[in-house]
């Protein structure tokens, strides 16, 4: 019986193997074609930033710059006050990120481990509702609130309203829900204070979440446009995104400057991405979050 079936099975396996190999080539080609399609706009943009102004609009277009130059970057550095906008953005992004991580961790822990309280569950539902009803929508009233709090045109106005993110709270909540309660019970029996349990035991355990949220939050704040737009009026307090928008919004766009400044504005995030890649592209943590 078995002798009869082994021969066709072997042939079958061999056929399957060649069939699989037949699938590898077209699928790999297709994937890399798509990848090229996704990468091309950025590559083209990056290469264009190294072209001198005269070459940018000169037909026929060439992929590689004929006379590579960094003149655009020098111009962005000198004339565009790049350093000022850069440090403004960095200060806002770093401060907000630290506060976001702390607030989200504390709140997420409370939502995960004190669920027997009714108000905790209600607050969690309220927070989830804000993903449906985002603040972008209520722009003008939010502006009035910021103005009435005296936060208009201040760093506080840029930082404080963006501290609370549902995504961050949700990430920590999901993590702490997965931590068994026994650990807390044991610490309680040993006489640890409730807040002590959080700061000394739970917070150190959540290090991967802290890292991921920190990177996400930094990216959100670095790339944020709408908050700085409504909070900041003084040009000296502009963040990079607002400053870039002011070049694009001009009657005649200074393309060499715009290309160079845009490329430079991306660099910090690229650096962070390269260093912390495993925290950013960790699908298990990322599932179900987006901002």
């Amino acid at each position, binding site marked *: 019986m078995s002798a009869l079936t082994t021969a066709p099975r072997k042939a079958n396996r061999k056929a399957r193997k060649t069939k699989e190999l037949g699938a590898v080539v077209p699928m790999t080609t297709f994937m890399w074609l798509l990848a090229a399609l996704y990468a091309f706009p950025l590559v083209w943009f990056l290469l264009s930033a190294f072209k001198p102004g005269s070459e940018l609009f000169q037909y026929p277009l060439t992929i590689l710059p004929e006379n590579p130059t960094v003149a655009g970057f020098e111009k962005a550095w000198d004339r565009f006050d790049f350093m000022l906008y850069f440090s403004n953005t960095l200060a806002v992004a770093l401060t907000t990120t630290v506060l976001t991580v702390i607030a989200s961790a504390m709140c997420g822990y409370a939502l995960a481990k004190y669920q027997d309280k009714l108000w905790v569950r209600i607050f969690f539902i309220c*927070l989830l509702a804000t993903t449906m009803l985002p603040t972008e929508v209520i722009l003008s009233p939010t502006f009035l609130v910021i103005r009435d709090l005296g936060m208009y045109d201040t760093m506080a106005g840029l930082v404080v309203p963006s501290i609370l993110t549902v995504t961050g709270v949700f990430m920590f909540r999901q993590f702490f829900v997965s931590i068994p309660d026994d650990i807390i019970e044991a610490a309680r029996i040993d006489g640890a204070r409730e807040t002590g349990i959080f700061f000394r035991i739970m917070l150190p355990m959540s290090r991967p979440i802290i890292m991921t949220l920190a990177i996400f939050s930094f990216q959100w704040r670095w790339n944020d446009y709408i908050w700085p737009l409504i909070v900041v009026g003084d040009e000296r307090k502009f963040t990079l995104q607002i400053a870039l928008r002011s070049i694009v919004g001009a009657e005649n766009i200074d393309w060499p400057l715009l290309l160079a400044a845009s490329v430079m504005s991306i660099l910090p995030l690229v650096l962070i991405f390269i260093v912390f890649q495993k925290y950013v592209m960790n699908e298990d943590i990322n599932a179900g979050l987006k901002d």
Partner: protein
Amino acid sequence: MTATAIRTRTPAGPRKRPGRGRRAQYRLAPLVLSGLSIVLFLVFFVWPGSLGLIYSFTDYTGLGTPEFIGLDNYEKLFADPTFYQSLTRTLLFAVMSVPLMYVMSLSIAALLVSNHTKGKSFAKVVFFFPWLISPIVAGVVWRWMFGESFGFVNYLITRLGADPLAWQTDPDLALMVVVIAATWGGTAFNMLIFIAALKNVPRAYYEAAEIDGANAWQRFRHITLPSIAPTSFLVILLSSLGAMKEFAMVQALNGGGPGTSNVMLIQYIYETGFKRADIGYASAVSMILLLILLTIALVQMAVNRRQSA
């Protein structure tokens, strides 16, 4: 490490803290921990939200005392052709970009978990890279690609012998560019969510289907799609909400142009609220947008529930 530190400080034995203190602590701890978030939630969500609702019934301009004018703003709104234009433009954008985003991110995710593709880890980085790019810079990148007289796309089209297309001055083509740019920028994240979901589909299902002679498409259609249905729901919901809120990228790409033909709802709210200082009217638009978002969410939830039932 920290746990042992605590343990040495309070030696084993009878608890030092009396039961009542423990209970009070247990009551207070969640309040202390989430206090900051609650305050921020009240100040930056509930407060402006209620203000918006109240102001939508007034003629407030940011200064002076708001005067109650009943439903005037809403009546004006429903008779305003620019509002309808921006509403239909936003909906059209959502209807085009959400399916495209869904198909692209799911296909790419499927390719990235497939056994038949090579160089997956590097390709994943390439696909993920647009996530780093801010909406403003993404808008600039695509504006540069689709420039009418200098863009690469039109250069390619002329090289192929056709006439260059009016990507900036034709309203519909301009919207197409917005759709492409939005899909490009939004794929990365949805792709990650899908990869996680695809990896969770049990291998055995595919093996069983293969033995039964199901081809690749049948396997995808009858195993993969049903298995990742909850994720699909999440991605579609979040993308539709995101599409309705599109603002920054369009600002850099064409500023809602040509003219005002592609002004989306958030930009409309921003311009009436800030440039015209007509806060009452802008708040009324906000309330309508909130209703739309809520409807989208509820409809999709209902559809999702019916499918899974």
